Structures are given as structure tokens and as C-alpha cells.
């Protein structure tokens, strides 16, 4: 350990016996970054508590020792949130991974913070129940991280994001006090104010989650997936507009721009999309008797907007084939580029054309490749920039593009993050987005729960620096 003295290190090791304190550079290397992999912050140590009581003891010890710390699940976040930006200790919560209760009659589940999202989904299937938030990292990401970042996914156009499903949360505060906000009913319980609302989406800056009460809904009985391509943007834009206002309420409306389509088609993952086209993918779901009757109307809508290759189906193999290009693009970014950044912003849908123009213009000026996908139903845009951080000046170009785009997003009436969080990636843009009064109101919140910023410093707002 480089950032703490031997006495402190020994006390931490005593609190985490059995090799559950990692300190060697090789051991902590995996915790240097999250999905924003070009920004690295090596922690001094990684602690792996076995249960909530050990987390409480650890938090109290870290408070007394004056060491900054950050909670972490699978580390799949894309905004530099679950990293030790000021050094200190990463508390890895992967051992808190029990599904404690599934209550079909009341429609809720109680889970520990380290439960993997897709493990919950598998456990719910036999009950015919569904927890809709579905970030693309579902096979590995944990519910604690999902709640901390208010994760979304492709189906939140109709079903909503994580905060729509958190009924209650158990939280360890900075002083080691364990509090429960809400519960199966999802209300305030004995509290006068709805404090859990502040903790959900707070990116681990106010307390450490240990368990959640999550709302469940019936699993859609049947799903139809549609894929269409368009030769020009106006056609694709019209398809998005008409799908979004259609009373059949698609569960998902996804968009890929021509550079993204071409990236897939130039790879071994090609699926036969016309190069240079815009791709729209949409899904409708519900009881078979209902959703089957809506299929032709959706297909017709896609055709009327100018697509001559509308493909659709409900069999699992067919649906997976239709999703393949969209699902493959994320992995391809990592295969064809040493580094990439997945931006995240939400804009009014009417501004999509203007925003795409700006993305292409900025990327071309910087000599950086860009591909764009979008959760188009709710205007959640993900421009992805491919670069090589080892090349002089490339990182600066990426950061300049990010700044230009985020300023434009705010001007358009959009927001800086729809589902990834702010982390340390976008903290610098918060002052401009909120304005002085809005930012001052925001900064009042960590003053209540984490006034010294010892927990997850330098995230969300750059002013949040821990001074021991």
C-alpha cells in the first residue's frame, strides 16, 4: 500500500481476516477503473466484507482512520463512478449476493446489494415475474450499482428505470448507523420525508446500500421484435416519432446510425444490414391475444416511413437474430479500438438530427471515429468515440468533444446522463447544467450525509474533495 501507513494497513487487515484485504498492485489492478477504462485510479486496498455487519465495522474503522473509501459491485459503470479517485479503500460488495425473498402476492423481492441483475431475472422466471431495468451488462452488473446509478436499459421507454422499482433500501450511513428507507409498501414508513429518493441515483456518495426491496410486475407473456432500415435520416426519425406516440406503446425503440451499422457489417458479426443505413429496432409485448393483434400495425408503420426491409418475429431464435447487430456493437468497440468512451445524454427527440450533425462534425474535426446508438423512445443518446489514449493528444480531443456535446445537450433542454451517472467523467459539466442556484441546492445533499466527502470523493461534483 502506497497511500497509508503500516499501522492503518494492519488495522484494516485485522478487520478483514482470511485474505479479504487485497493490497498488492497485482490484486488491486482490477479495481483501478470501471468501464471508463482509460481513467485509472489505483486504490490503496480492496476490502471484501462478508456481510452487512462487517461493512458497518469497516465503515466505522475507515471513518476513524480518516481514509477515503468507495463501494463497488461489478465495476461495470461507464462514468468513472466506482473508483478510488483520491486513493483509499474500495469496498467490494460481491459477497452480499443473496436473494432473500420473492413475494409474488405482494409483487416484490428483497435482495442484497451484490446480487447480479440477471441472477435475479432467472430467479423470477418461475414465478412469472419481471424486474424490467435491463442495462446491457446484466450478466455481471449488480443491483447495488444499478440503484446507485439509476440504471436504465433498452426497455425503459415503457417500463421505466431503476428508481421506478426501488420500494425500499437499507443503507449504512457514514457513522455506521444502519437505516431503512421504505420497504415492501414503497412509501416513507416512519419518516416524514422520502429520503430514499435522494439515495437512489446518488452514485455511492451518501451511504452504502446493503439490501433493497424491489417492485416486480408480471412478465410479458409474448414479445415481438421488429427491425427496419432506412436510407435517410428523415425516414428513420419519422419512424421513431410515430412509434413513440403509438398507443400500442412499444417497450423499446432502438436506433443505430450508419457508422454503427457499417461497423457491424464490416465485422465477423455482420447480419446483412444495408451499409450506410439507419437501423430501427422495436419491440411490443403483452398477452398473446392482445399483442398478436398489434403486429401488422407496427410493421405497416415501419414500412410507411420508408423501409423496404422490415423483418419481425416472436420466436426466441428470430428475436435474438434481430437483436444481434444491436447487441454486437458494444463488444466490437473494444475489439477494433484500443480505447473508447460511451457517452450518455438525453435530448429532446426533435433535436436528434442536429445532435448527430454536431457529433459527426466534432469527430471529423478531431480525426476520431464515432458511432452512435440511441434508446430512441426516450431520447437517450450514446455516441461512442473510438481512440487510442497512448497517442499524444487523443485524450484531450475526446475530452474537448465531450465538453462541446454536453454544453449542446444542456442548451437543447436535455440532461447530462440518462442512465450511466456522472461519476468523475462529467462532474466538470454540472455547474453549467444546473446554474449557481441549482448547484448549491444539489450540494446541500452530501452536506447532510457525507459532509467531509470521505465516501466516494470527487464524484458527481468536482467540489466534493475529501480533506482528511
Amino acid at each position, binding site marked *: 500500500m502506497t497511500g497509508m501507513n503500516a499501522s492503518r494497513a494492519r488495522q484494516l487487515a485485522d478487520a478483514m481476516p482470511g485474505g479479504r484485504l487485497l493490497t498488492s498492485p497485482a490484486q488491486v489492478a482490477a479495481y483501478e477503473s470501471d468501464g471508463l477504462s482509460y481513467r485509472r485510479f489505483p486504490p490503496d486496498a480492496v476490502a471484501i466484507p462478508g456481510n452487512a455487519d462487517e461493512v458497518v465495522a469497516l465503515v466505522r474503522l475507515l471513518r476513524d482512520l480518516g481514509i477515503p473509501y468507495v463501494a463497488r459491485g461489478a465495476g461495470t459503470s461507464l462514468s468513472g463512478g466506482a473508483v478510488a479517485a483520491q486513493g483509499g479503500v474500495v469496498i467490494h460488495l460481491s459477497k452480499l449476493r443473496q436473494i432473500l425473498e420473492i413475494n409474488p*402476492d*405482494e409483487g*416484490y423481492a428483497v435482495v442484497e446489494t451484490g446480487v447480479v441483475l440477471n441472477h435475479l431475472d432467472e430467479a423470477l422466471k418461475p414465478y412469472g415475474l419481471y424486474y424490467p431495468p435491463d442495462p446491457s451488462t446484466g450478466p455481471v452488473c449488480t443491483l447495488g450499482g444499478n440503484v446507485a446509478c*439509476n440504471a*436504465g436499459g433498452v426497455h*425503459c421507454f415503457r417500463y*421505466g428505470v431503476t*428508481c421506478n422499482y426501488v420500494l425500499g433500501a437499507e443503507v449504512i450511513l457514514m457513522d455506521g448507523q444502519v437505516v*431503512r*428507507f*421504505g*420497504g*415492501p*409498501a*414503497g*412509501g*416513507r*414508513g*416512519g*419518516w*416524514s420525508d*422520502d*429520503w430514499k429518493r435522494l439515495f*437512489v441515483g*446518488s452514485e455511492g456518495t451518501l451511504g452504502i446500500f446493503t439490501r433493497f426491496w424491489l417492485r416486480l*410486475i*408480471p412478465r*410479458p407473456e409474448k414479445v415481438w421484435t421488429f427491425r427496419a432500415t432506412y436510407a435517410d435520416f428523415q425516414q428513420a426519425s419519422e419512424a421513431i*416519432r410515430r412509434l413513440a*406516440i403509438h*398507443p400500442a*406503446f412499444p417497450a423499446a425503440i432502438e436506433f443505430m446510425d450508419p457508422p454503427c451499422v457499417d461497423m457491424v457489417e464490416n465485422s465477423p458479426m455482420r447480419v446483412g444490414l444495408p451499409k450506410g443505413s439507419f437501423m430501427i429496432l422495436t419491440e411490443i409485448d*403483452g*398477452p398473446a*391475444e392482445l399483442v398478436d393483434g*398489434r403486429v401488422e*400495425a407496427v410493421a405497416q408503420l415501419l414500412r410507411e416511413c420508408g423501409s423496404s426491409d422490415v423483418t419481425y418475429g416472436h420466436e426466441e431464435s428470430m428475436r435474438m437474430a434481430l437483436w444481434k447487430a444491436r447487441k454486437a456493437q458494444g463488444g466490437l468497440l473494444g475489439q477494433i479500438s484500443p480505447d473508447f468512451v460511451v457517452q450518455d445524454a*438525453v*435530448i*429532446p*427527440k*426533435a433535436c436528434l438530427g442536429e445532435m448527430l450533425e454536431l457529433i459527426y462534425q466534432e469527430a471529423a474535426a478531431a480525426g476520431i471515429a464515432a458511432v452512435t446508438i440511441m434508446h430512441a423512445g426516450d*431520447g*437517450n443518446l450514446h455516441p461512442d468515440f473510438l481512440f487510442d489514449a497512448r497517442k499524444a493528444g487523443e485524450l484531450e480531443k475526446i475530452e474537448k468533444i465531450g465538453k462541446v456535446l454536453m454544453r449542446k445537450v*444542456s442548451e*437543447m*433542454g436535455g*440532461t447530462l446522463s*440518462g*442512465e450511466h451517472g*456522472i461519476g468523475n467523467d462529467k462532474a466538470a459539466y454540472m455547474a453549467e447544467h*444546473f*446554474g449557481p*442556484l*441549482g448547484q448549491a*441546492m*444539489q450540494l446541500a*445533499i452530501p452536506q*447532510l450525509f457525507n459532509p467531509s466527502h470521505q465516501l466516494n470523493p470527487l464524484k458527481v*461534483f468536482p467540489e466534493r474533495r475529501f480533506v482528511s
Partner: protein
Amino acid sequence: MMMDSGIATDGSRLFTRFFDAVDMIGSFPAAATLAEVNAIAAGHGLRFPLVIDLDRTLREHLAVAEYAPASARFGAYVDNLPGMNWLLPTGRRVRIGERVVKSTTGYDLFRFLLHSDGRYGQATDYVLRLRPVGGESFAVAFTGDAGALAAVRRRLMASSWNHWIDRIDQVSVAGSPPRIEAEVDCLAGEKPRFLAFFAAVAGESGTGMVEASGVASPGLPAFSIKSTPARVAELSAICAGRLGGQARALLLNGVVLVYPDNPPDAAFLADLGRSLEPLGGHLLGPSLPPRDPIPAEAIWAASLNHQWNAL
């Protein structure tokens, strides 16, 4: 054509008056009635479905209920209002939340403040998420004994049909047998499919089922109860029996809207409130007696007021 961002450019960042039919979103004064909101929305083929009383204002709705009957399909108010302009006690106004429906930018002051009952200021304008009008609306009523109605509730709760049903209420009226009402706003031509489903539910549950023409809203409730879905039918019966009048259990949301003939006594409310707390439930309404805050909460609330009132 330039799109109206809906955000003031004078440095205040406040929401301006805007209507975006593409995003199905618009801002409205807190003092607007739901009839006024829906008259504007209807011009674009849209509606704001979370109506309890068309003639009452948005602010009045939010003071007494976190859910409306149509929350069965569309969720709570907090999931349908992404932002608002907020008046601090100091007289300064600030934008809270966003004009887009999805955000994880900063601390969620919007959800914290929306039903905070004047403790930190009040809303002057709301941004509302609107929904497309379906094309055909109708309602049905299930009648039967308590056991049969419980079977209807369980069947509706477990079926993905409920994603498409606007309202599923159990209505308890003092001195009358309870009934479950369901209301649908569907695509033209889909009504027979819904009726077939409802008939199957009635058959399986041993209840009667009739098409009900336009069930009148009794207006805004005196107060609302947040509990869990399986408990609200009983709670609504208790309230109607004890207080007279009627109570409507929003079965999917675990909410009861209470319309008493007689004002509830403090002991009844205190007992009811205590029974809800272990589940994370609560009571809401402007006429309810104030509660003593939990000591930790009193410190947090005082600190927030101190910080915000200094701005």
C-alpha cells in the same frame, strides 16, 4: 424550425411554458386544473391520465395522493412528472428536475420534493409526461363476495394484461357490498379481447362481471394510504366501515383513496399510521395531523432548510 428547449436562457435555467408533442411532454402551472391540462393535450391526441378530479388543480392532486386510479398502468405521479419550477421560502425560484423523461444527473431532488408538503417550499409549475389517447375506452365491474373479489385481484395482479388496464380499483362503500372496477383505454377494435379476458377472470373467480358505463369520480380524497397491494382491499373496507363514505383501493399500487363521511379521529389515524410503518407505508393528506420527525430526520431537515434558505 428551432425547437423550444423549454429552458429559460436568462441564466435562471427555469422551465418556460412549452409543449413538445414529439416527446409528449409539456409544462403547466401548478394552479392549472386537470381539465385545462387535458384540453391542451387533447389537441395533440394526448392525455395526462393521472386524473382523480378534473376540476381540481395539479397542486391539489399532489398534496393528497401519490397515485391516481390510472397509476395501475402508468405508475405514480412521480414517474410522470420529470420536473418542476420550485419556489423556495426565500422567494427565489429554481428548476428542479428535467424536461426529458430519463435522467440520472445529480441528486434526485425532484422525487424528494414532489410530495414534501410545503416543508421546503412549493412548486409553481410542473412538467408533465403525456400519453397517447387509445381510441376506445370502457369499464367493467366485478361483483361477488370478499373471497371471490380477492381471487379477481390475484388473477389481475399476476397477469401481464394488467400492463394495459388503466384502472383496477376495489370500491368499498359503507353499507354496500364491495366491487372491483377495471377501466381500459385500448386501440380501436381491441375491446372484445379485453372483454373476453375479463369474462374469463370472472368465470375463474366466481364473480359477476358487467360492463359499467363511466364510473363517476368522487373527487379528491380527504387523505390517501400507501400500503402493499395485498392489504389495501381490507384497508379500504375498514376505512369505509369506520368512517362512512367510501374508500377506493388502487389494487396494483397498494394505495387507498379515502372519502369519509365523518372526519377521522386522531386515535384512528395514529393506529393506522403505526400499522403501516413496518411495511414502509404511510398516510398522506393536507388535513392529517403533523407527525413528530425521527430525531435523525429532524437534523437532516433542519440542515436542508438552513442551507437552502441561505441561498
